[in-house]
Protein backbone atom coordinates (compact mmCIF):
# COMPACT_ATOMS: atom_id res chain seq x y z
CA UNK A 1 0.00 0.00 0.00
CA UNK A 2 1.22 3.45 -0.89
CA UNK A 3 1.12 6.64 1.10
CA UNK A 4 -2.47 7.57 1.74
CA UNK A 5 -3.95 10.96 2.29
CA UNK A 6 -4.71 9.86 5.83
CA UNK A 7 -1.05 9.09 6.52
CA UNK A 8 0.00 12.49 5.35
CA UNK A 9 -2.70 14.01 7.51
CA UNK A 10 -1.49 11.99 10.47
CA UNK A 11 2.09 13.00 9.98
CA UNK A 12 1.06 16.61 9.67
CA UNK A 13 -1.03 16.63 12.81
CA UNK A 14 1.72 14.80 14.68
CA UNK A 15 4.18 17.47 13.73
CA UNK A 16 1.78 20.23 14.70
CA UNK A 17 1.02 18.63 18.04
CA UNK A 18 4.71 18.07 18.68
CA UNK A 19 5.40 21.73 18.01
CA UNK A 20 2.67 22.76 20.43
CA UNK A 21 3.94 20.40 23.10
CA UNK A 22 7.45 21.59 22.50
CA UNK A 23 6.45 25.15 23.33
CA UNK A 24 4.69 23.98 26.47
CA UNK A 25 7.54 21.77 27.64
CA UNK A 26 10.52 23.88 26.63
CA UNK A 27 12.87 24.93 29.41
CA UNK A 28 11.93 28.30 30.84
CA UNK A 29 14.43 31.05 31.39
CA UNK A 30 14.53 31.04 35.16
CA UNK A 31 17.48 33.39 35.54
CA UNK A 32 20.06 31.11 34.02
CA UNK A 33 23.27 29.83 35.48
CA UNK A 34 26.68 30.99 36.57
CA UNK A 35 29.79 29.39 35.18
CA UNK A 36 33.08 29.96 36.92
CA UNK A 37 36.35 29.21 35.20
CA UNK A 38 39.85 29.54 36.60
CA UNK A 39 42.65 29.90 34.07
CA UNK A 40 40.37 28.53 31.36
CA UNK A 41 39.33 25.46 33.36
CA UNK A 42 35.80 24.93 34.60
CA UNK A 43 35.56 25.48 38.36
CA UNK A 44 31.83 25.01 38.74
CA UNK A 45 28.34 25.81 37.53
CA UNK A 46 25.71 27.33 39.82
CA UNK A 47 22.06 28.27 39.58
CA UNK A 48 21.53 32.02 39.41
CA UNK A 49 18.26 31.58 41.29
CA UNK A 50 19.89 30.19 44.44
CA UNK A 51 21.94 31.84 47.12
CA UNK A 52 25.57 30.90 47.38
CA UNK A 53 28.93 32.26 48.39
CA UNK A 54 31.85 30.71 46.59
CA UNK A 55 35.31 31.21 47.98
CA UNK A 56 38.14 30.44 45.58
CA UNK A 57 41.65 30.33 46.93
CA UNK A 58 44.60 30.18 44.60
CA UNK A 59 48.29 30.86 44.89
CA UNK A 60 47.65 34.20 43.23
CA UNK A 61 44.99 35.14 45.79
CA UNK A 62 41.43 34.86 47.02
CA UNK A 63 38.07 35.70 45.42
CA UNK A 64 34.65 35.48 47.01
CA UNK A 65 31.75 35.32 44.59
CA UNK A 66 28.23 35.92 45.85
CA UNK A 67 25.06 34.77 44.09
CA UNK A 68 21.74 36.11 45.37
CA UNK A 69 18.40 37.40 44.08
CA UNK A 70 19.18 36.38 40.53
CA UNK A 71 22.42 38.34 40.38
CA UNK A 72 26.09 37.58 40.87
CA UNK A 73 28.88 39.83 42.03
CA UNK A 74 32.45 39.73 43.30
CA UNK A 75 32.17 40.36 46.99
CA UNK A 76 35.81 40.14 47.94
CA UNK A 77 39.08 39.92 46.08
CA UNK A 78 42.64 40.59 47.08
CA UNK A 79 43.81 41.26 43.52
CA UNK A 80 45.92 44.43 43.17
CA UNK A 81 43.52 46.28 40.88
CA UNK A 82 40.13 45.39 42.36
CA UNK A 83 38.43 45.86 38.97
CA UNK A 84 36.45 42.68 39.43
CA UNK A 85 34.68 44.12 42.48
CA UNK A 86 33.87 47.32 40.62
CA UNK A 87 32.21 45.47 37.78
CA UNK A 88 29.17 45.24 40.03
CA UNK A 89 26.21 42.95 39.77
CA UNK A 90 25.62 40.82 36.71
CA UNK A 91 22.43 39.02 35.91
CA UNK A 92 22.12 38.77 32.16
CA UNK A 93 23.32 36.15 29.80
CA UNK A 94 26.56 37.12 28.10
CA UNK A 95 27.76 39.26 30.98
CA UNK A 96 30.93 38.36 32.80
CA UNK A 97 32.96 39.43 35.78
CA UNK A 98 36.64 39.06 35.08
CA UNK A 99 39.48 39.07 37.58
CA UNK A 100 42.52 39.32 35.34
CA UNK A 101 45.23 39.00 38.00
CA UNK A 102 43.65 35.76 39.23
CA UNK A 103 42.62 34.57 35.75
CA UNK A 104 39.12 34.03 37.05
CA UNK A 105 35.94 34.45 34.99
CA UNK A 106 32.38 34.44 36.27
CA UNK A 107 29.95 34.19 33.37
CA UNK A 108 26.19 34.35 33.21
CA UNK A 109 24.99 31.59 30.91
CA UNK A 110 21.67 29.96 30.17
CA UNK A 111 18.44 31.25 28.78
CA UNK A 112 18.53 34.75 30.08
CA UNK A 113 16.39 37.18 28.17
CA UNK A 114 16.64 40.91 27.83
CA UNK A 115 13.85 43.45 28.02
CA UNK A 116 12.69 42.65 24.49
CA UNK A 117 12.48 38.99 25.34
CA UNK A 118 15.38 38.06 23.08
CA UNK A 119 18.69 36.69 24.23
CA UNK A 120 21.97 38.47 23.59
CA UNK A 121 24.90 36.86 21.82
CA UNK A 122 27.60 38.95 23.43
CA UNK A 123 28.05 41.99 25.66
CA UNK A 124 30.62 44.69 24.96
CA UNK A 125 32.03 45.78 28.28
Amino acid at each position, binding site marked *: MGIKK*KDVLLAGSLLLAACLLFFVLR*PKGDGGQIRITVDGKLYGTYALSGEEKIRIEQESGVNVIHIRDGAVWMEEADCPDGYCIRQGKMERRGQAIICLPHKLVVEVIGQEENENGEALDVVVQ
Partner: protein
Amino acid sequence: MKKDFYVIALVCGTILAACFFCGCFGKEGELLVLEDSEASLEFFAMDTYMRVVAYGREDQANAAVSAAREEIYRLEKLLSTELETSEIYQVNAHGKGELSTDALSLLQRAVQLSEMTEGAFDFTVYPLMRAWGFMDGQYRVPSPSEILGLLGKTKVSGVLVDEEQGYVEFEADGMQIDLGGIAKGYAAARIMDIYREKGIANGLVSLGGNVQVLGTKPDGNLWRIGLQHPDGGKEYLGVLQAMDLAVVTSGGYERYFEQDGERYHHILDPSTGYPAESGLLSATVVSADGTLADGLSTAIFVMGKERAVAFWREHIAEFDMILYTQEEELYVTQGIVGDFSSSLLFEIISEEP
Protein backbone atom coordinates in the same frame (compact mmCIF):
# COMPACT_ATOMS: atom_id res chain seq x y z
CA MET B 1 -10.79 0.13 15.83
CA LYS B 2 -8.69 1.83 13.25
CA LYS B 3 -9.69 5.19 14.61
CA ASP B 4 -8.52 4.22 18.10
CA PHE B 5 -5.20 3.18 16.68
CA TYR B 6 -4.76 6.56 15.08
CA VAL B 7 -5.55 8.34 18.34
CA ILE B 8 -3.06 6.24 20.29
CA ALA B 9 -0.45 6.65 17.60
CA LEU B 10 -1.04 10.37 17.60
CA VAL B 11 -0.55 10.67 21.35
CA CYS B 12 2.53 8.45 21.49
CA GLY B 13 4.04 10.05 18.44
CA THR B 14 3.44 13.50 19.81
CA ILE B 15 5.16 12.72 23.07
CA LEU B 16 8.07 11.08 21.31
CA ALA B 17 8.41 13.96 18.88
CA ALA B 18 8.20 16.51 21.67
CA CYS B 19 10.89 14.69 23.61
CA PHE B 20 12.99 14.64 20.50
CA PHE B 21 12.56 18.36 19.97
CA CYS B 22 13.27 19.13 23.60
CA GLY B 23 16.32 16.91 23.34
CA CYS B 24 17.60 19.37 20.80
CA PHE B 25 18.07 21.81 23.61
CA GLY B 26 21.51 21.96 25.08
CA LYS B 27 21.94 22.13 28.79
CA GLU B 28 21.88 25.89 28.52
CA GLY B 29 18.39 25.70 27.08
CA GLU B 30 19.39 26.92 23.64
CA LEU B 31 18.29 25.36 20.44
CA LEU B 32 21.34 23.70 18.95
CA VAL B 33 21.56 24.15 15.24
CA LEU B 34 22.01 20.74 13.78
CA GLU B 35 23.82 21.61 10.55
CA ASP B 36 26.34 23.94 12.17
CA SER B 37 28.40 23.01 15.12
CA GLU B 38 29.81 25.65 17.41
CA ALA B 39 33.45 25.73 18.38
CA SER B 40 34.69 28.19 20.96
CA LEU B 41 37.83 28.91 22.93
CA GLU B 42 38.31 31.10 25.98
CA PHE B 43 41.69 32.24 27.17
CA PHE B 44 43.73 35.08 28.61
CA ALA B 45 45.97 37.07 26.30
CA MET B 46 47.00 40.69 25.69
CA ASP B 47 46.16 41.44 29.35
CA THR B 48 42.52 40.59 28.86
CA TYR B 49 39.98 37.80 28.63
CA MET B 50 39.18 36.56 25.16
CA ARG B 51 36.51 34.41 23.61
CA VAL B 52 36.50 33.27 20.00
CA VAL B 53 33.55 31.43 18.47
CA ALA B 54 33.07 29.90 15.01
CA TYR B 55 30.15 28.06 13.46
CA GLY B 56 30.41 25.55 10.68
CA ARG B 57 31.38 21.99 9.95
CA GLU B 58 32.80 20.62 13.15
CA ASP B 59 36.37 20.11 11.93
CA GLN B 60 36.45 23.47 10.18
CA ALA B 61 35.05 25.33 13.17
CA ASN B 62 37.55 23.68 15.51
CA ALA B 63 40.45 24.47 13.18
CA ALA B 64 39.26 28.07 12.85
CA VAL B 65 39.15 28.83 16.57
CA SER B 66 42.53 27.16 17.13
CA ALA B 67 44.03 29.26 14.36
CA ALA B 68 42.39 32.35 15.86
CA ARG B 69 44.01 31.71 19.23
CA GLU B 70 47.38 31.07 17.59
CA GLU B 71 47.12 34.37 15.74
CA ILE B 72 46.44 36.24 18.97
CA TYR B 73 49.42 34.61 20.67
CA ARG B 74 51.58 35.49 17.67
CA LEU B 75 50.50 39.14 17.70
CA GLU B 76 50.97 39.34 21.45
CA LYS B 77 54.57 38.12 21.13
CA LEU B 78 55.15 40.71 18.45
CA LEU B 79 53.49 43.71 20.08
CA SER B 80 53.75 43.28 23.84
CA THR B 81 55.38 46.15 25.72
CA GLU B 82 56.30 43.84 28.59
CA LEU B 83 57.77 40.84 26.81
CA GLU B 84 61.51 41.34 26.34
CA THR B 85 61.52 39.39 23.11
CA SER B 86 58.83 41.48 21.42
CA GLU B 87 59.75 43.87 18.64
CA ILE B 88 57.98 46.76 20.35
CA TYR B 89 59.84 46.09 23.62
CA GLN B 90 63.16 46.16 21.79
CA VAL B 91 62.34 49.38 19.96
CA ASN B 92 61.25 50.99 23.24
CA ALA B 93 64.39 49.82 25.02
CA HIS B 94 66.77 51.19 22.40
CA GLY B 95 64.83 54.09 20.93
CA LYS B 96 65.14 52.46 17.54
CA GLY B 97 65.04 49.11 15.81
CA GLU B 98 63.78 46.92 13.04
CA LEU B 99 60.20 45.92 12.65
CA SER B 100 58.72 42.98 10.77
CA THR B 101 56.01 43.54 8.17
CA ASP B 102 53.11 43.04 10.58
CA ALA B 103 54.41 45.33 13.30
CA LEU B 104 55.40 47.94 10.72
CA SER B 105 52.01 48.00 9.03
CA LEU B 106 50.27 48.25 12.39
CA LEU B 107 52.57 51.12 13.37
CA GLN B 108 51.71 52.91 10.13
CA ARG B 109 48.06 52.35 10.83
CA ALA B 110 48.54 53.90 14.26
CA VAL B 111 50.23 56.92 12.70
CA GLN B 112 47.31 57.32 10.27
CA LEU B 113 44.77 57.11 13.09
CA SER B 114 46.67 59.71 15.06
CA GLU B 115 46.65 62.07 12.09
CA MET B 116 43.01 61.36 11.32
CA THR B 117 41.97 62.20 14.91
CA GLU B 118 44.38 65.14 15.21
CA GLY B 119 46.19 63.51 18.09
CA ALA B 120 43.20 62.26 20.10
CA PHE B 121 44.51 58.78 19.40
CA ASP B 122 48.13 58.75 20.52
CA PHE B 123 50.28 55.61 20.81
CA THR B 124 53.23 57.55 22.26
CA VAL B 125 51.40 58.20 25.52
CA TYR B 126 53.02 55.07 26.97
CA PRO B 127 55.64 56.80 29.21
CA LEU B 128 52.78 58.77 30.79
CA MET B 129 50.73 55.60 31.27
CA ARG B 130 53.69 54.12 33.11
CA ALA B 131 54.19 57.21 35.24
CA TRP B 132 50.56 56.99 36.38
CA GLY B 133 51.07 53.32 37.22
CA PHE B 134 48.43 52.07 34.81
CA MET B 135 50.81 49.53 33.31
CA ASP B 136 51.87 47.78 36.53
CA GLY B 137 49.13 48.71 38.99
CA GLN B 138 51.47 50.86 41.13
CA TYR B 139 49.12 53.83 40.91
CA ARG B 140 50.29 57.33 41.70
CA VAL B 141 49.55 60.87 40.62
CA PRO B 142 52.71 62.23 38.97
CA SER B 143 53.76 65.77 39.80
CA PRO B 144 52.82 68.50 37.31
CA SER B 145 56.46 68.95 36.34
CA GLU B 146 56.85 65.22 35.73
CA ILE B 147 53.77 65.26 33.51
CA LEU B 148 55.05 68.29 31.64
CA GLY B 149 58.36 66.55 31.04
CA LEU B 150 56.68 63.41 29.77
CA LEU B 151 54.33 65.39 27.51
CA GLY B 152 57.48 66.41 25.64
CA LYS B 153 58.01 62.73 24.83
CA THR B 154 54.41 62.24 23.79
CA LYS B 155 54.39 63.09 20.11
CA VAL B 156 53.59 60.89 17.19
CA SER B 157 55.59 63.18 14.90
CA GLY B 158 58.68 62.09 16.83
CA VAL B 159 58.31 58.51 15.59
CA LEU B 160 60.36 58.31 12.42
CA VAL B 161 59.38 55.38 10.24
CA ASP B 162 61.49 54.12 7.36
CA GLU B 163 59.02 52.02 5.48
CA GLU B 164 61.46 50.54 2.96
CA GLN B 165 64.05 49.52 5.53
CA GLY B 166 61.43 48.35 8.02
CA TYR B 167 63.06 50.56 10.58
CA VAL B 168 61.80 52.92 13.24
CA GLU B 169 63.60 55.52 15.32
CA PHE B 170 62.45 57.92 18.02
CA GLU B 171 63.36 61.58 17.81
CA ALA B 172 63.82 62.08 21.56
CA ASP B 173 65.31 59.98 24.35
CA GLY B 174 62.76 58.32 26.58
CA MET B 175 60.05 58.14 23.93
CA GLN B 176 58.15 54.86 23.90
CA ILE B 177 55.26 53.45 21.92
CA ASP B 178 52.43 51.05 22.67
CA LEU B 179 50.25 49.69 19.88
CA GLY B 180 47.90 48.14 22.45
CA GLY B 181 45.32 50.77 21.55
CA ILE B 182 44.65 49.03 18.24
CA ALA B 183 46.17 45.58 18.77
CA LYS B 184 42.96 43.89 19.89
CA GLY B 185 40.94 45.48 17.12
CA TYR B 186 43.56 44.39 14.61
CA ALA B 187 43.55 40.88 16.05
CA ALA B 188 39.75 40.72 15.76
CA ALA B 189 39.92 41.84 12.13
CA ARG B 190 42.66 39.29 11.39
CA ILE B 191 40.51 36.54 12.89
CA MET B 192 37.66 37.43 10.53
CA ASP B 193 40.10 36.85 7.64
CA ILE B 194 41.26 33.57 9.17
CA TYR B 195 37.66 32.42 9.58
CA ARG B 196 36.94 33.13 5.92
CA GLU B 197 40.10 31.31 4.83
CA LYS B 198 38.98 28.30 6.89
CA GLY B 199 35.57 28.22 5.26
CA ILE B 200 33.69 29.74 8.20
CA ALA B 201 30.82 32.08 7.35
CA ASN B 202 29.51 32.83 10.85
CA GLY B 203 31.52 33.70 13.90
CA LEU B 204 32.13 36.07 16.73
CA VAL B 205 35.06 37.25 18.80
CA SER B 206 35.08 39.15 22.06
CA LEU B 207 38.56 40.35 22.92
CA GLY B 208 38.21 42.37 26.11
CA GLY B 209 35.88 45.16 25.03
CA ASN B 210 36.40 44.50 21.34
CA VAL B 211 33.61 42.56 19.70
CA GLN B 212 33.61 41.68 16.03
CA VAL B 213 31.12 39.49 14.20
CA LEU B 214 31.45 37.62 10.92
CA GLY B 215 28.32 37.31 8.80
CA THR B 216 25.08 36.72 10.64
CA LYS B 217 24.19 34.19 13.28
CA PRO B 218 24.06 30.65 11.88
CA ASP B 219 20.25 30.91 11.74
CA GLY B 220 20.49 33.94 9.47
CA ASN B 221 19.44 36.49 12.09
CA LEU B 222 21.59 39.45 13.02
CA TRP B 223 23.87 39.14 16.04
CA ARG B 224 22.50 40.81 19.16
CA ILE B 225 25.21 42.78 20.89
CA GLY B 226 24.54 44.26 24.33
CA LEU B 227 26.30 47.44 25.41
CA GLN B 228 27.33 47.51 29.05
CA HIS B 229 25.97 50.38 31.13
CA PRO B 230 28.78 52.30 32.89
CA ASP B 231 26.82 52.02 36.16
CA GLY B 232 27.26 48.28 36.27
CA GLY B 233 25.64 45.04 35.41
CA LYS B 234 21.89 45.29 35.64
CA GLU B 235 21.00 47.60 32.82
CA TYR B 236 22.21 47.91 29.27
CA LEU B 237 22.81 51.10 27.36
CA GLY B 238 21.14 49.27 24.53
CA VAL B 239 21.28 46.42 22.08
CA LEU B 240 22.80 46.65 18.63
CA GLN B 241 21.92 44.16 15.91
CA ALA B 242 24.76 43.64 13.52
CA MET B 243 26.46 41.60 10.83
CA ASP B 244 30.07 41.91 9.62
CA LEU B 245 30.82 44.68 12.09
CA ALA B 246 33.20 45.52 14.90
CA VAL B 247 31.84 47.13 18.07
CA VAL B 248 34.32 48.58 20.53
CA THR B 249 33.62 50.45 23.76
CA SER B 250 35.96 52.71 25.70
CA GLY B 251 35.11 53.98 29.13
CA GLY B 252 36.88 55.10 32.25
CA TYR B 253 34.40 53.45 34.56
CA GLU B 254 36.19 50.20 35.29
CA ARG B 255 39.87 50.91 35.32
CA TYR B 256 40.59 53.69 37.74
CA PHE B 257 42.10 54.40 41.11
CA GLU B 258 41.24 56.88 43.85
CA GLN B 259 43.54 59.15 45.77
CA ASP B 260 42.58 61.92 48.19
CA GLY B 261 38.97 61.65 47.13
CA GLU B 262 39.78 62.13 43.44
CA ARG B 263 39.10 59.46 40.87
CA TYR B 264 41.69 58.88 38.13
CA HIS B 265 40.78 56.63 35.22
CA HIS B 266 43.11 55.06 32.70
CA ILE B 267 42.31 56.90 29.48
CA LEU B 268 44.79 59.75 29.33
CA ASP B 269 44.25 62.86 27.27
CA PRO B 270 47.48 63.08 25.22
CA SER B 271 47.25 66.88 25.19
CA THR B 272 47.19 67.27 28.99
CA GLY B 273 48.77 64.07 30.33
CA TYR B 274 45.85 63.70 32.77
CA PRO B 275 42.84 61.36 32.58
CA ALA B 276 40.52 62.65 29.85
CA GLU B 277 37.65 64.71 31.22
CA SER B 278 35.52 65.02 28.16
CA GLY B 279 32.13 64.59 29.78
CA LEU B 280 31.70 61.09 28.34
CA LEU B 281 31.27 58.00 30.45
CA SER B 282 31.47 55.64 27.53
CA ALA B 283 32.13 55.80 23.81
CA THR B 284 31.24 52.95 21.48
CA VAL B 285 32.42 52.84 17.89
CA VAL B 286 30.80 50.64 15.26
CA SER B 287 32.67 49.98 12.03
CA ALA B 288 33.37 47.27 9.47
CA ASP B 289 37.06 47.92 10.19
CA GLY B 290 38.03 46.38 13.54
CA THR B 291 41.34 48.23 13.82
CA LEU B 292 39.68 51.56 13.13
CA ALA B 293 36.90 50.88 15.65
CA ASP B 294 39.43 50.07 18.35
CA GLY B 295 41.58 53.17 17.83
CA LEU B 296 38.61 55.49 17.36
CA SER B 297 36.80 54.38 20.52
CA THR B 298 39.65 55.75 22.62
CA ALA B 299 39.95 58.86 20.47
CA ILE B 300 36.21 59.59 20.62
CA PHE B 301 36.27 59.19 24.40
CA VAL B 302 39.10 61.72 24.61
CA MET B 303 37.40 64.12 22.17
CA GLY B 304 34.12 64.39 24.03
CA LYS B 305 30.69 64.67 22.46
CA GLU B 306 30.93 67.94 20.59
CA ARG B 307 34.24 67.30 18.91
CA ALA B 308 33.28 63.67 18.27
CA VAL B 309 30.09 64.67 16.47
CA ALA B 310 31.97 67.08 14.21
CA PHE B 311 34.54 64.38 13.57
CA TRP B 312 31.85 61.80 12.75
CA ARG B 313 30.25 64.15 10.22
CA GLU B 314 33.55 64.20 8.35
CA HIS B 315 33.83 60.40 8.40
CA ILE B 316 30.25 59.22 8.07
CA ALA B 317 31.09 56.40 5.67
CA GLU B 318 33.71 54.96 8.01
CA PHE B 319 31.99 54.50 11.36
CA ASP B 320 29.03 55.08 13.66
CA MET B 321 29.00 55.71 17.38
CA ILE B 322 27.01 55.52 20.60
CA LEU B 323 27.88 58.04 23.30
CA TYR B 324 26.83 58.16 26.95
CA THR B 325 27.54 61.33 28.89
CA GLN B 326 27.99 62.25 32.54
CA GLU B 327 24.58 63.91 32.31
CA GLU B 328 23.19 60.43 31.54
CA GLU B 329 22.33 61.35 27.97
CA LEU B 330 22.54 58.74 25.27
CA TYR B 331 23.39 59.63 21.67
CA VAL B 332 23.36 57.39 18.61
CA THR B 333 24.49 58.33 15.12
CA GLN B 334 22.07 58.04 12.25
CA GLY B 335 23.74 55.16 10.45
CA ILE B 336 22.89 52.54 13.09
CA VAL B 337 19.64 53.91 14.50
CA GLY B 338 17.61 51.26 12.70
CA ASP B 339 19.57 48.47 14.38
CA PHE B 340 19.77 50.00 17.83
CA SER B 341 17.23 49.57 20.59
CA SER B 342 17.30 50.77 24.17
CA SER B 343 15.05 51.05 27.18
CA LEU B 344 16.65 54.46 27.72
CA LEU B 345 15.70 57.56 25.82
CA PHE B 346 18.26 58.50 23.22
CA GLU B 347 18.92 61.30 20.80
CA ILE B 348 19.81 60.69 17.19
CA ILE B 349 22.83 62.47 15.75
CA SER B 350 22.13 63.23 12.11
CA GLU B 351 24.37 64.09 9.23
CA GLU B 352 23.12 67.67 9.07
CA PRO B 353 23.89 69.81 12.12
